[in-house]
């Protein structure tokens, strides 16, 4: 099995999809000739031509809006938004159109489309190359939201997302892009949407995490391991979330910590806390805890004070366990 970085694994998934299905097209700023600013689409224009790997003008609303039209025609567009921080000019097309099109057309038109976008901090990107806007999209009915944490899942989830019938936001943790290599099977395989993965079993506290913060959660779990036995769940699909896996774990541990980079207030952590309360209240032995980014724009110099890194997760685990 070849070793791949996440960048390579995503590239591989795109290549496989495009070979397998003539309907798959990629479009975005700088995705073609140069293969994306993170080189995720490198080599694909050479193989599939400029008609299927398209460099667009600088307009995110145009990229997504055109993709909607393409999906209506019957293609499977995979638009890229260069950084999640620049997704807002496309917000109207995503929220008002892509998310509602199936429903409001009485099911006449679905919009199968995967919006890929690098997100998250830790690369000294400051305000506009670091954001984690996932909860904005989770709030909007009609969208699916996926976030892989490793190369294997990235490839398998992307293959599933491209074959899904609904619009998917696919958030790629850029801090992980080249951080590590991993065995990734050649060829086609699927990691199903809406299935979480228990990456570390434990009895005392459940940690819910995704993307780059998963590693911080695991590191924190290892650090407290002598004292506290932590279960870490990689959600992988944020919405619709795998509620069964979460609830089963929390019923076992009675304690839950949610970790995310996005600002705390109205982040996805709030939803997870609410779901846990609704479905496992009597099993809770401590209040659910959120370890998150702060309610500020994403800072540059102090980004390691902003991010919910292991040093901030550890005390949360200890306190929760001791509650």
């Amino acid at each position, binding site marked *: 099995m070849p070793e791949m970085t996440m960048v390579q694994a995503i590239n591989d998934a795109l290549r496989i999809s495009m070979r397998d299905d003539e309907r798959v097209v990629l479009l975005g700023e700088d995705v073609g000739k140069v293969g994306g600013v993170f080189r995720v689409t490198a080599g694909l224009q050479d193989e599939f031509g400029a008609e299927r790997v398209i460099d667009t003008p600088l307009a995110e*609303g145009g990229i997504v809006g*055109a993709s*909607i*039209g393409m999906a209506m025609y019957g293609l499977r567009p995979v638009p890229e938004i260069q950084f999640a921080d620049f997704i807002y000019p496309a917000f109207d*097309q995503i929220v*008002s159109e892509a998310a509602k099109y199936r429903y409001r*057309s*009485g099911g006449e*038109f679905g919009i199968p489309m995967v919006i890929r976008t690098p997100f998250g901090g830790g690369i000294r990107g400051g305000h506009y190359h670091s954001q984690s806007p996932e909860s904005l999209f989770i709030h909007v009915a009609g969208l699916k939201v996926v976030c892989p944490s490793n190369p294997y899942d990235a490839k398998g989830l992307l293959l599933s997302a491209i074959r899904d019938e609904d619009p998917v936001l696919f958030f790629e943790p850029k801090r992980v892009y080249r951080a590590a290599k991993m065995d990734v099977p050649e060829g086609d395989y699927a990691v199903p949407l809406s299935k979480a993965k228990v990456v570390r079993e434990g009895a005392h506290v459940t940690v819910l995490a995704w993307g780059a913060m998963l590693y911080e959660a695991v590191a924190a779990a290892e650090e407290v391991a002598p004292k506290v036995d932590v279960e870490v769940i990689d959600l992988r699909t944020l919405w*619709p979330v795998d509620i069964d896996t979460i609830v089963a774990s929390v019923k076992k541990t009675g304690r839950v910590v949610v970790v995310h980079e996005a600002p705390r207030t109205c982040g996805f952590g709030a939803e997870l806390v609410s779901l846990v309360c609704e479905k496992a209240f009597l099993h809770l032995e401590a209040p659910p805890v959120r370890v998150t980014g702060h309610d500020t724009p994403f800072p540059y110099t102090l980004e390691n004070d902003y991010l919910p890194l292991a040093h901030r997760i550890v005390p949360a685990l200890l306190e929760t366990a001791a509650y």
Partner: protein
Amino acid sequence: MIRYELPPSRSVDHTDIETVLGPDGRADPHLDPKLDSALVVKIYEAMLRTRVLDDRMLALQRQGRVSFHVGCKGEEAAIIASAAALRTEDWIFPCYRELGALLWRGFPLQRYVDNMYGNADDVVQGRQMPDHVTGKQWAYASVSSPIGTQIMHAVGFGWAAKLKRQKLATAVYFGDGATSTPDFHTGLNFAGVYKTPTIFLCRNNRWAISVPSDKQTASASFAAKGAAYGVRSVRVDGNDALATYRAVREAVERSHEGPTLLELVTYRLGGHSTSDDPKAYRLQEEVDLQSKGDPLTRLRRHLELLGAWNELQERRFVSQLDSEIKQCVEIAEKKPAPELRSMFDGVYAERPWHLDEQYELTKRGPRPGKE
């Protein structure tokens, strides 16, 4: 080319306008698309049908039987003659005033009226406001309220067809107000760069609710905007069914070369919608003056000259349509509301767990009383 004079007050015109039908009902022999007179009659009937329907829906709204209606009084030529010039394989991406184009393609009247009532047989299952229909079978996309968003879809759809070497054009309708939106800009720009087979139909009806078109832009005309994108554009008398047909037909024929922007200069004779009272912002004199250019009157005069239409036909057509409408309304009013589950279905291709839960909980009740 006969110049059709627009009243100067609200005018943003500094460029020529393409007109075929003269005030006397005669077609300019050089520009006349020379359509079969049966086709012209069919276009006229469709325009008349829309006019009558608008009137009856307005009445139903005033009686509180439907909650809302948005019509196209005064814009019938711009809408129907353009749709008539499209080929069956060409797709329509509507704004909210182009019901006439959908009916032209054969959408059944009952289906429309069911949508007005949002009942169980409504194609969109009562999920959207009245007049927000969909007609995939008729190559007609979904109507939504946000202004301009459909423009990018038309571009993307046509672009996809081009990539797949399928010969079709996409025609997208929007108003003068919509030219200020991001989607107009992006749509024209992408279409220009990728030479998509898109026909941009800007219904310049001179008003965006209360904002007159000369406050919408300082451009010499809406057609003039095409140059900013390298997109061919033509300014057409949108109250002239023949000129509109001719210009759209040409755009269709040239669609394999790339896009065309057509400014169809017309006038919104009615309120913006049933929610609007235009007396608050425009003078009755302006409306009276514009009524003289009524596209139905102009086309009817032409047909009468040709001996292809007369008062008797008109009356017979209207009375038959009226009983058809009446019947559809009666049927629609008897139909039940959509079932509760229709509210939770169709958000995704398959209903996920959280919507199952929400459905079950809501079904268990209590349900709301009639308000």
